[in-house]
């Protein structure tokens, strides 16, 4: 984080024919913001002003267009050759890596172990300062100071219990994403908690109560799926 590199956005680009569910879930669970792209044009259209935090390229479905995309990115991206890039390849594609060392920073074999993949993404972003952990989490009127554990809504301090705070932090770090109760239980409470997935409902209800009528709808119930914080990504 302290390295003297230019600031980048915290948005990852994910290039794939279609983003594999396992990949999407691992990124979501890791708390990363990401955008799916399918062509070099799209990549430059959607690139944030500060450049991509990193790029993940899934080469398993169509390796030819994947490498073409990478080459084009290296030439045309705002940050030029410095964009950090992780290639996802199948075991049979290892030979594809030969003589392409300048094109990628790291690679990961598919199917991947989520923990390994996440560790690689974390390492990829290490020097760019785009790690998902930041001191302040802000979303509209809500702000959370991760360093001091304080939360406020429209300037009014929120008095939360520890678990309520952790749940709100997790949700607000991932606005627009839908989480199942199991995912939330898993990520926020950890496996040792025995209350069951209904614990999540109980805490969401309490959080809404504390946010107050005006802001209770920040945490939306997605029927028969789970919960979403804030707007959907696409709206």
């Amino acid at each position: 984080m302290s390295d003297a590199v230019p600031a980048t956005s915290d948005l990852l680009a994910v290039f794939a024919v279609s983003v594999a569910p396992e990949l999407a879930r691992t990124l979501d669970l890791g708390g990363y913001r990401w955008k799916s792209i399918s062509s070099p044009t799209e990549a430059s259209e959607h690139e944030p002003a500060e450049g991509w935090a990193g790029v993940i390229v899934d080469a398993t479905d169509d390796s030819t267009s994947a490498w073409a995309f990478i080459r084009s990115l290296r030439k045309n991206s705002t940050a030029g050759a410095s964009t950090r890039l992780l290639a996802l390849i199948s075991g049979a594609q290892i030979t594809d890596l030969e003589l392409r060392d300048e094109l990628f920073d790291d690679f990961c074999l598919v199917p991947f172990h989520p923990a390994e993949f996440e560790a690689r993404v974390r390492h990829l972003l290490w020097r760019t300062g785009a790690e998902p952990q930041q001191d302040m989490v802000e979303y509209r009127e809500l702000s959370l100071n991760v360093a001091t554990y304080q939360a406020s809504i429209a300037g009014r301090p929120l008095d939360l219990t520890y678990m309520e705070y952790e749940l709100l932090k997790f949700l607000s770090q991932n606005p627009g994403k839908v989480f199942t109760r199991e995912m939330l239980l898993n990520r926020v409470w950890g496996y040792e908690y025995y209350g069951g997935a209904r614990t999540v409902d109980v805490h969401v209800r309490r959080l809404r109560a504390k946010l107050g009528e005006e802001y209770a709808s920040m945490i939306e119930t997605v029927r028969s799926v789970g919960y979403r914080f804030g707007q959907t990504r696409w709206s």
Partner: protein
Amino acid sequence: MTELQDQQRDYIMRSVEERGVRLVRLWFTDILGNLKSFAISPAELENALDDGMTFDGSSIDGFSRIQEADVLAIPDPNTFELLPWGDPKTPEARIFCDINNLDGTPFHGDSRQVLKRHVQSAHAQGLNFYVAPDIEFFYFAAPEPGARPVPLDEASYFDLTTNDVTGTLRKQTIRTLEAMGIPVEYSFHEDAPSQQEIDLRHTDAVSMADGVMTFRLIVREIAAAQGVHATFMPKPLEGVQGSGMHTHMSLFRGDGNEFFADDDDYNLSPTAKSFMAGLLRHAAEITAITNQTINSYKRLVPGFEAPIHVSWARNNRSGLIRVPIAKRGNPTATRVEYRSPDPACNPYLAFALLLAAGMKGVAEGYELPAEADANLFEIDDEVLAKLQIARLPQSLAEALRAMEESELVQEALGEHIFEWFLRNKWREWEAYKTHVSDFEINRYLRAL
């Protein structure tokens, strides 16, 4: 100490610092369900979270005997909350405590740990016990000592009145409850003058018992600030409905409601049925705990929507257990409603015994008797006897006698609380027996 506990402790210490908390109130509950508290300064809090706070328990009903007066209050970091009343410039916080002996073993007079023990034993079978009470209470003008209570309004069930003082109080109360993380499901003006009902949303039993303790304090505090007296006395006014605490219960295994069955006429699973059978079979034994005052039994009389018979039904409010019909056949909403408890009980002990009685039924596979769907208030005793429908205890003395005989209650509460409670309540009964009431004077003084 686990990583989670470390983080929680850190969270509390930072909150205290950032919010400038001046005083931390350590809360716990005596055997009769009275909230007790002592305050410590933030400087002592870290130490309290690590090692607990020693205090002299001998002054507290049902706590230590003289020779072993000191006990330890162990704060439960999950329950740390800022109190949303008082001067915002000098904020105060509360935290619920478990009470331990100095050697670290649970103190036998601690009702919170009694409930925890039962919740954990259900959990050892993969079950989570959820509870949602509907709490009724009255608002009165601040009473003169010895005077009869005066209702604040004459509104009745669901009424909207223009000058509804009690409505304003209720709204403030609900805001405060929500700010303290006690979500409200419904609230309305009840049948009787000045009577209110607030229904809480289900949560795990320990949190809910903590919630009921907080609820009673909030209701009283907010009323007192307006010069109004709020009471949870079960039957403050003769001739109108009393205050109950109908308790909705369900058992969940993960996301699945163990009480629900698709293929049953009542949508009740075998677990639900034997749980209900357990409640019914042990109802008389646990009544001294769910209805612990002399006055409680003046609520449990015919004609006022309070149960008097040990029976169950789907939509009959005269029975002890009601099985509410779930909206849209929603499996997660399937639950049983136990209707005798009143809001003057110790919620930790009441929930513990409801769970113990229900789980006994499940463990032994008790058979659920047939539904009693007639209005039992209108059936005479002979027919009831034929249907084998018993009555709930008619007085505190009857309830205490049933409790004394109960192995289930003795085991569930532990020797210390069991004996202390009986001793204390028999004394109350003896004191009541010597009282000569208005009823007797009016009826006998001139006539005899």
